[in-house]
């Protein structure tokens, strides 16, 4: 079901949003790596089974405006230590360490009778924190890139669109030239989130300035730093944001192909990104003439194989090219000669959704 142009995209957004709003309850089970390890997928299946037993529609296709409960698997909430996590909307309740045995109570008490189950909630001494936002761990967080993680279905392009997904791309395609996009990013002072801190807009405008038959957008998902998993969270929890970011970068620089380099230790991220790319292709948000414009762009996933050094830009590109991931000394910078010696913009996973 192709989305042919921007007005169609806007229509779909309204449709999906309305469908989402019609869901009187949403049950969001965390499907990030940590919670999956704790058995969250079993929790999901059990909840779904119990809900359907009651004759309520659990998984809703947002194309149709059916009544039902929205059951979804989200990306990582970040509170892996207390997983599996289940979030209930609209109240915003967060249940911790949910086991399969708890599911019946959740369905009965919270979904049917609208009552919170305090024993599953976060406690500090005597104080019970009912909603996710009130928990001290979350209260001080101002999530920007990770905004959607934990809140939307990580495997649904429809939900992404309902939450204004791809609208930035639409705006860019409709109202701005590539130069204006670069200018806007420069003005925003967005700097490389992988640690390099190079102004992203400046990088994009440099790639734009080099004429070439082929240009590439590369997304560095080789997060090797021990203890860090924000890139993983984004790739698992909000894969479309990465795709959208890359597509905007492609428009701004004149690139026609993209690569997301995901380290092998993140199989779930690979899975979610693959599905997201397939979904995007199926509706025409990747491929030829995106949204009816001249922009043609497609993305491939390149997997790492266990080398920390491949997080470095030139080694990463060597790895994509199928060589040993050894860093290369460069005569010309990557923006002029990068992947296969073509102008390349290479950004961290976190930079692109921004």
């Amino acid at each position: 079901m192709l989305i042919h142009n921007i007005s169609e995209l806007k229509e779909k957004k309204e449709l999906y949003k309305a469908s989402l709003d019609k869901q009187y309850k949403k049950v969001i089970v965390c499907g990030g790596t940590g919670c999956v390890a704790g058995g969250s997928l079993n929790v999901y299946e059990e909840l779904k089974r119990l809900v359907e037993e009651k004759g309520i529609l659990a998984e809703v296709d947002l194309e149709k405006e059916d009544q039902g409960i929205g059951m979804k698997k989200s990306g990582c909430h970040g509170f892996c230590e207390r997983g599996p996590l289940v979030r209930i909307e609209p109240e915003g309740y967060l249940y911790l360490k949910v086991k399969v045995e708890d599911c019946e109570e959740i369905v009965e008490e919270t979904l049917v009778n609208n009552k919170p189950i305090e024993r599953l909630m976060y406690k500090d001494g005597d104080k019970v924190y009912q909603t996710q936002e009130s928990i001290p761990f979350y209260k001080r967080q101002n999530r920007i890139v990770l905004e959607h993680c934990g809140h939307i279905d990580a495997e649904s392009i429809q939900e992404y669109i309902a939450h204004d997904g791809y609208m930035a791309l639409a705006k860019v395609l409709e109202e701005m030239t590539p130069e204006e996009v670069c200018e806007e990013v420069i003005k925003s002072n967005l700097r490389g989130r992988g640690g390099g801190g190079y102004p992203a807009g400046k990088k994009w405008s440099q790639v734009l300035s080099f004429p070439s038959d082929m240009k590439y957008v590369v997304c560095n998902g080789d997060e090797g730093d021990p203890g860090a998993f924000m890139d993983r969270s984004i790739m698992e929890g909000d894969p479309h944001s990465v795709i959208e970011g890359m597509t905007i970068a492609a428009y701004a620089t004149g690139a026609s192909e993209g690569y997301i380099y995901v380290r092998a230790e993140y199989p779930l991220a690979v899975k979610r990104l693959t599905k997201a790319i397939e979904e995007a292709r199926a509706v025409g948000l990747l491929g030829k003439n995106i949204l009816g414009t001249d922009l043609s762009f497609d993305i491939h996933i390149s997997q790492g194989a266990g080398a920390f050094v491949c997080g470095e830009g030139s080694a990463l590109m060597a790895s994509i090219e199928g060589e040993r991931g050894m860093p290369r000394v460069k005569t010309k910078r990557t923006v002029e000669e990068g992947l296969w010696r073509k102008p390349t913009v290479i950004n961290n996973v976190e930079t692109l959704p921004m």
Partner: protein
Amino acid sequence: MGTMIIDGRKVEFNGEKNVLEVVRKAGIELPTFCYHSELSLYGACRMCIVEDKNGKIFTSCSTLPKDGMEIYTQTPRLQRYRKNILELLLSNHDRDCTACERTGACELERLATRFSIRDIRFGELDRKHPIDDSSLAIVRNPNKCILCGDCVRMCEEIQGVGALSFAYRGSHMKVAPAFDKAIGETNCIDCGQCRVICPTGAIAIKNETDKFWNLVHDKSKRIIAQVAPAVRVALGEEFGLEPGDITVGKIVAALKMLGVDEVYDTAFAADMTVIAEGEEFVERLTTGENLPLFTSCCPGWVKFAETRFPEILDNISSCKSPQQMFGSVIKEYYKDDEKETVVISIMPCTAKKAEAARKEFQKDGVRDVDLVITTQELAILIKEAGIIFEKLEDESFDMPFGLASGSGVIFGSTGGVAEAVVTRLLKDKPNHICKEVLFKNVRGMDNIKEAVFNIDGKEIKLAVVHGLKNAEKLINKIKAGDKEYHIIEVMACPGGCVAGGGQPASMPIDNEVRKKRAQGLYRIDRASYIKSSEQNPLIVSLFEDMLKDRHDLLHVNREKETGY
């Protein structure tokens, strides 16, 4: 185009591809291990670092010169860093220099001396990689390897073979053949270019000088030596002479002093090759079969074809190489003699060692060529014997196999074989006309050279290629139907045999050196009385006499005898 400021002096640059070349042009020899103008950039050794006026340090091999750039080459930091790098490399290196093949010509040793490394603070790493002695041509000692990657890139980018590559990672990284096998068991073609470019003794020629001594000390044998053309324009480099200086007379004298009984010229055998291959070519032209004809005198090329393009083996000439023709003819000549005849060939080529050992070049278990000594090894022998090479009086080759035409001599350069064969085929044309055609088109260092000439009204297309990566490209073009030729000369080594794996390599071998050596051969050709192979009266009488019905001495049946 522009001007840089190097150590306070203005230096103009015009087209140099990096700062390193500009600095060298300015008269400062910046040290490098991993930089070669003919190979891709690696930039790993960091020896070529320079400092700009802001204190930024960068590798000069990978930086483009910019107008107004201001750099320094001798700041205190640079000096400290260079020493540190050398110390680290040496701490990881088998420092048995006095017993090393490469001592005196080793770049690591040279730079350590140049930078006065007196104390290696990092101790000595206990490395025990086994020495790989499996090849007939080279010996690998990974304990001396500094991981510059030059051999890897030479083998892959210039030769298109890729027998060596980096393997493993981090502190386990090393240069290895496929699956860490012994190199003799891989697709290595024995060309020895890796040894030429290696800055240390990690890859060396298989030294068989002791076998030479054993043979010449045995007075019951007749020791015969044949000297290849390319040897005579490069051996002098080991004795203070320039590339291209002709030392053939001294070589004969030296060999006699070392105990060789008869010294002959491989160029004579090259004349035989010209006649035999010329005949073969004319026959193929008539039948139209198995064209294009590929030359067969280069054993590196033949081995490359056997492994990579077995389908074209029928196109390769059935003629033996000059070395092998000489061996079989000499042994036949002396077959009834009571003294056992031993043939030693002095070659610029490491692959010749493997060629001489091949099954099809033996008769009843006895090799046609018993031992191959490279130019480098000959220098070792001369020095060991204490012969003062530069002071030797010229002597001439022995007869009857010592008289060669200029055509035979130029076999040592790329384009030489083609020129010799075509000169012979155009024998009815006045000399200066065919030289004109060929001089312009087949001489020189271009990767692929083409020429067109006429035989009896038929247009003949000729190609000359050197460096096997270029040969691979050419063959693929022919297979795709993009190019068509009748005869193709292939030399594995860039520049041809003058830059072979067995030649002296105490200076970086680039096209300048190759050209100088080749020009030495062309000078000999110019001064030759006999220009064309069939004008050589000894060749004529040999073909009328001994070789009349003995084509088996000059040809080899590749499929039947080699099993490929």
